[in-house]
């Protein structure tokens, strides 16, 4: 082995060891690295009332109730991960992206009568869709944003704004490129 | 509600940084080239001629 080869193997060995160490550490701490807990985790093992947790999930359609206590708006909504649902109470202004069917992360504490949030963060998904296309998909009944993620991009990403305008003007005809949901 | 300030701030930040890096690199290149030319002026040989085979 030349000195260069020896150095190369030395570097490879060091990087491999370091990578393994990092992987093991991440594995060990993975429950602390997650940003939020899901409603079913909270239901299975309720955190103590003095501990701040981040609860993440989807806002259940039709569960949002908003009222005004003096100046501050107070909202109640259910957050679900498909298996369990937790009612969240929040005093304050919700983020712009908040809507039924949206993923949110609520920061707060778990009480007997539900989750009291001090902060609500909106989480958006990785789908990027022009407004007109979304409108057209909703009009044609192919997708309701309150009940789930949008259909796969292949079904609509050839759809242009003009096509979308046409569909919007004439909601009976199906969107040209959109296949069944 | 409009988010225009956030958008403009992002693009402005990027443009400012790109301009700063470009100006910095250009000035360094200019200075280095001028100094090298000054140092090598007495020689009629092209730069690096003594080291290349």
């Amino acid at each position, binding site marked *: 082995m030349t000195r260069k080869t020896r150095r190369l193997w030395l570097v490879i060995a060091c990087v491999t060891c370091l990578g393994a160490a990092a992987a093991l550490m991440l594995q060990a701490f993975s429950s602390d690295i997650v940003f939020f807990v899901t409603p079913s985790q909270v239901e299975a093992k309720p955190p103590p009332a003095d501990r701040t947790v981040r609860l993440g999930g989807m806002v259940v359609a039709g569960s949002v109730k908003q009222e005004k206590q003096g100046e501050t708006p107070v909202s109640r909504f259910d957050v679900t991960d498909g298996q369990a649902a937790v009612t969240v109470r929040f005093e304050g202004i919700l983020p712009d992206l908040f809507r039924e069917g949206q993923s949110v992360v609520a920061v707060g504490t778990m009480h007997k009568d539900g989750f009291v949030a001090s902060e609500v963060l909106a989480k958006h998904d990785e789908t990027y869709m022009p407004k007109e296309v979304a409108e057209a998909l909703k009009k044609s009944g192919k997708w309701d944003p309150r009940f789930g993620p949008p259909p796969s991009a292949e079904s609509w990403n050839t759809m242009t704004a003009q096509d979308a305008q046409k569909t919007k003007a004439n909601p009976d005809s199906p969107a040209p490129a959109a296949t069944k949901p | 509600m409009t988010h225009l300030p956030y958008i403009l701030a992002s693009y402005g930040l990027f443009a400012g940084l790109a301009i700063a890096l470009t100006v910095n690199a250009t000035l360094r290149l200019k200075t280095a080239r001028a100094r090298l030319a000054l*140092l090598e002026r007495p020689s009629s040989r092209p730069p690096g001629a003594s080291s290349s085979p």
Partner: protein
Amino acid sequence: MTASPSLVARTGSLFHRYANPGRFLRLAARLQPWLTGLALLFTFAGLGWGLFFAPADWQQGDSVRIMYVHVPTAILASSGYAALALCGLLSLVWRHPLADLAAVEIGPVGACITAVCLATGSLWGKPMWGTWWVWDARLTSVLVLFFLYLGHIALIRAFDDPQRGYRAAAILALAGAVDLPIIKFSVQWWNTLHQPDSITLTGAPTMSSSMLWPLGLSMLGISLGFAAIVIARLRAAVMESRVRSLLSNPRRRGDAA
């Protein structure tokens, strides 16, 4: 292992072809106008398209336009560090002189790009998520990358003997490369506030093609711009080192005269 020495030697000789500073300067000087011109063209086209002509997103509205700056800088932050790690490997194993100079020059540019990525992410997060910053796995691992860049910049300049600085920084660059897969897969391994990647190698992009095109253009343009700036700085660095050696070794200058 019988094949490896020849492979190592061949790889070394391939890279050493461009270790000759004169050859590098000639090649880089020829490459520079093309890199700069194409970078300007694609960046202006991509960002202009993104800012003025691309459609607004159905849920994020116009804020989605921050993506055309944020995503290319995020990708470059990672690939810039990968380049730094490659320079570290070339430096440690093959003692490549140009790799050390390149590592000195890539560091600050990469750190700036990472700072822009973090700042634009923050500017995007505030109107969309409702917060400037959260300590989720993706954001934290990119912040770690930023500190790795800063550490590299400091370390490579920390010693009186530049060779020792090069060696130490190369080790840091290689060790820090562990952060790159963590950044990439953080959104899949753990739940995060940051959304998963829209563009993956395995699946179709979950993005309208009317947004994908300007994004691709600005990605190409900004990457070329990164390369153009690094090449320009590297050319300056090679010339500066030649100036230094001419100044510290006046005999050679006398010879030449």
